[in-house]
């Protein structure tokens, strides 16, 4: 019987203040041409200059529609952006990641990535993917010779 009185006493509220780097990062919602939806951390998404402009032009929480990129290619691009958004990210780690990133991609997939990087205006991805295609073309020309 004493316990019911105790239960009526409210416990004092506790407030937890998060530091800046512990706050959950804002995400941006991207939608591919074939309807796939991706939640992407803001720091990664804004590495694309095109997405940056689109975000500035719309309201928070809106879905950014990317008409020129299909779901498969967009998921690769997002993997790339998430990795490149990590700070700090050394040149050596970048090179290792980029090499591995392209190692399992076929010629036509790399072309799709170039198209996407060009549309999304991601300078570094455009640079590495065009380099990769040039190397693949050179290899094929030499084999044909």
């Amino acid at each position, binding site marked *: 019987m004493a316990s019911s009185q105790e239960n009526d006493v409210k416990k004092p509220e506790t407030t937890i203040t998060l530091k800046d780097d512990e706050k959950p990062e804002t995400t941006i919602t991207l939608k591919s041409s074939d309807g796939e939806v991706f939640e992407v951390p803001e720091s990664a998404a804004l590495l694309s200059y095109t997405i940056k402009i689109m975000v500035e032009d719309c309201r928070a929480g809106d879905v950014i529609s990317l008409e020129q990129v299909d779901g498969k290619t967009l998921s690769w691009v997002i993997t790339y952006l998430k990795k490149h958004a990590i700070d700090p990210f050394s040149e050596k780690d970048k090179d290792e990641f980029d090499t591995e990133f392209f190692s399992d991609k076929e010629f*036509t997939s790399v*072309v799709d990535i*170039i*198209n996407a990087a060009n549309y999304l205006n991601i300078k570094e991805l455009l640079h590495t993917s*065009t380099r990769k295609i040039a190397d693949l*073309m050179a290899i*094929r*020309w030499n084999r044909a010779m």
Partner: protein
Amino acid sequence: MSLMSTRIESLPEECLSHIISLTCPQDACRSSLVSCIFRDAADSDSVWDKFLPLDYPDIISNSVSPFFFSSKKDLYAKLSSTPLLIDGGRKVYYKYFNVKKIQTFLLDKYTNKRCYMLSARELSITWSTNSLYWCWKHLLHSRFPEAVELVMVSWLEIQGKINTRMLSPNTTYGAYLVVQIVKRAFGLDDTPLEVSIEVGDYKMRGNICMNLNECQRQGGYEAFCVVGQRGPCPRGDGWLDIELGEFYNDEGDREVKMEFKEIKGDRLKGGLLVEGIELRPKP
């Protein structure tokens, strides 16, 4: 390649041009044969600008004759197919003689590196101002207006100099004395000829053996090339190369000194026709 070429043709032209510019001149030429889309991208100035040397405006402004080109690809084709005669300024030698320095510039189409040939007038040839010893000639089959023929001399000494800034960086170069051996040649096979290259602290020396009897017996220049020995080799344009040595050009700013001489023996020598010294990348 057809599925891939269809897919890659979906890229914007400037993207495709950028990709082709990352390959090499030969691949860019091959690309232009794939399709009309590839041809437009591969033939664009933005591609060939990447293959041309950065200072090409200076080079062509020094051309001895008027130089015209219709596109950057055309410019590249001209610079890589025919040595371009350029005015290297004037040189005063032996105090009294003020002569025009003439050189040729060529882009090696396989490596895209710079090749230069210094004319005989640019070289320092001991006794060459005296027509008793050396005779200057106008030749139709030379790229230069003049070449010089050894009449007779016991002290044979030819030197050439070039600054490494004129050459492509991070490249191994060979230096070659470009000559012909005329029919009346004598004394060149009596003693080994000394060749050397010096670049800063780096020095390379060697000896060259000529075999005039063999040449006369076989009747052709090919007889000079003896397997395992260094000797003059045919260039394919009617002249012979005598390798003076090789060196690695890093990105420094130094003078390359090249020498060909026979000054130890007393024997008279004659019949060496000198066109110049060429520097080109080693394969």
